[in-house]
């Protein structure tokens, strides 16, 4: 609130040019600038979209650039668009006092992505939660089981085609 309203920088090209000295942008450009699908700086928050098959490498690159603390991860169901699920990771840097949002997309036909627990072990419960409530599988996760819902539950409640009330 105290922050001055910051301008929105939309589009990959614009962000890469105008924010070239931002640590996260620098790290991902150094890693593989072609892999950045999209970038957006909006409301003071930087979002970078990478392909889902490169998520672990992207996370490693970000971590090496000083974004040491995993903070949050979740999914958004954009039914009926394709790819359907947007995965959002929030990574924080304690030293730079900065947060970066990494986004990726997975399709409905094969909702699977590599687990980032090898880079950020703190993502463990969060990936289980997304697996439970969205039905997205995380390859290489040490213990991919339901966490909120009972083991025998059918369906994934946070999907948009799951009813809010009533019986299944």
């Amino acid at each position, binding site marked *: *609130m*105290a922050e001055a*309203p910051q301008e929105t920088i939309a589009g990959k090209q614009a962000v890469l040019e105008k924010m070239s000295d931002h640590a996260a942008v620098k790290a991902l450009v150094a890693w593989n600038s072609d892999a950045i699908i999209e970038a957006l700086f*909006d*409301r*003071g*928050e930087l*979002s970078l979209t990478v392909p889902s098959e490169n998520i672990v490498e992207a996370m490693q690159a970000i971590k090496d650039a000083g974004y*040491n*603390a*995993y*903070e*949050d991860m*979740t999914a*958004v*169901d954009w039914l009926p668009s394709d790819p359907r699920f947007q995965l*959002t990771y*929030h990574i924080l840097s*304690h030293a730079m*006092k900065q*947060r970066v*949002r990494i986004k990726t997309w997975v399709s409905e036909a094969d909702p699977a992505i590599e687990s980032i627990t090898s880079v*950020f*072990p*703190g*993502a*463990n*419960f*969060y990936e*289980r939660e997304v697996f439970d*409530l969205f039905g997205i599988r995380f390859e290489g996760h*040490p*213990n991919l*089981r*339901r*966490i*909120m*819902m*009972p083991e025998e539950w059918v369906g994934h*409640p*946070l999907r948009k085609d*799951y009813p*809010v009330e009533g019986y299944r």
Partner: protein
Amino acid sequence: MPDVGTPILQAPPAEGSHDQHMVLNMGPQHPSTHGVLRLVLEIDGEIVVRLYPEVGYLHTGIEKTCESKFYQQVVPLTDRVDYLGPLANNLCYCLAVEKLLGLEIPERAVWIRVLLTELTRINSHLIWLGTHAMDIGALTVFLYTFREREDILRIFEAVSGQRMMTSYFRIGGLAMEPPLDIFDRIQKFIKTLPEKLDEYSNLLTGNPIFRNRLLGVGILSPEDAVALAVTGPTLRASGVDFDIRRDMPYSSYEKFQFKVPISNRCDCWGRYEVRLEEMRESIKIIQQALDGMPGGPVKADAPKIILPDREKMKTQMEALIHHFKIVTEGFNVPAGEVFQAIESGHGTMGYYVVSDGTAKPYRVHMRYPGFASLQALETMCQGRMLADVVAVIGSIDIVLGEIDR
């Protein structure tokens, strides 16, 4: 790299094996688990070999419910997530939506928000102190801390009409101007609080049983703490100097002077010291907020978002229309996504709100500190006695409402 959460395999030991490990269930109805937390422990005698938290008993699908409500209707839902710090929940959600809307909040509302959020922090820490000491066997402290908590709840009641589920912070400011004498009451309360804190300290800090149960128990190295996404006082007790209030200020926290207590002990005692000190710092912030409290309105000037005053509604046509529109249709929020993090009593609380341009949030994700802290439980308890698990659970200060959501 710490290993968390691989399930304990309950297969019987192989033929001829002298494996004497036993699998023990603790909870979900155990007085020391602070709600309904179930722990599956693999123990060797009395030594914890593996520990595996099983959560979800309080899952209510609150994130799903948010998607079917108007933006303003989500505020009361947030109270119920971390039910020991209701105003911190309100603040985080309101800040997130205000960020989406690009709404400027009047200074008085911002300062009252800081004032009450710090009272919430003290409230949350008092409950932690009472229950933590009670788990360890010091029953008396619980009665003392709940006495002071009662004062805070009375203040909340005077301000919002509710003791616990306050819903006092609204999108665009506060629900209403607080009652006239409220600042005097808060002033009176924080004047007596430091000596009460000394009293707790007298009861516990020198107590040999309390010391022995906490000193050197539940070691969490700074590397592990960061890797396992632990935040808040637990992180700072591991020697990591990070507090969102100071390092990434929100809601005008940059205008307040306070220290961020750190401990390098990395054990339960460190967490005890840090939280006790944090309460004293909160008192300082409250004092500054009371001294510098600005005047003016407590609601932003945005008639299409904030409900009009009752008086205006009865006399002005425009106000009546706005009221009708907000109640029946809500207000549209520009499309976009924001992540707003604040420092709650337990650690980093974050709301990730995605808007698709309609009057209902497309997705609300709540990041709560307890969920992450629970991952670190195994690291802290491994190789320690079974009884230490109780002390460690108390020291990470979890609320199951925020874990299961």
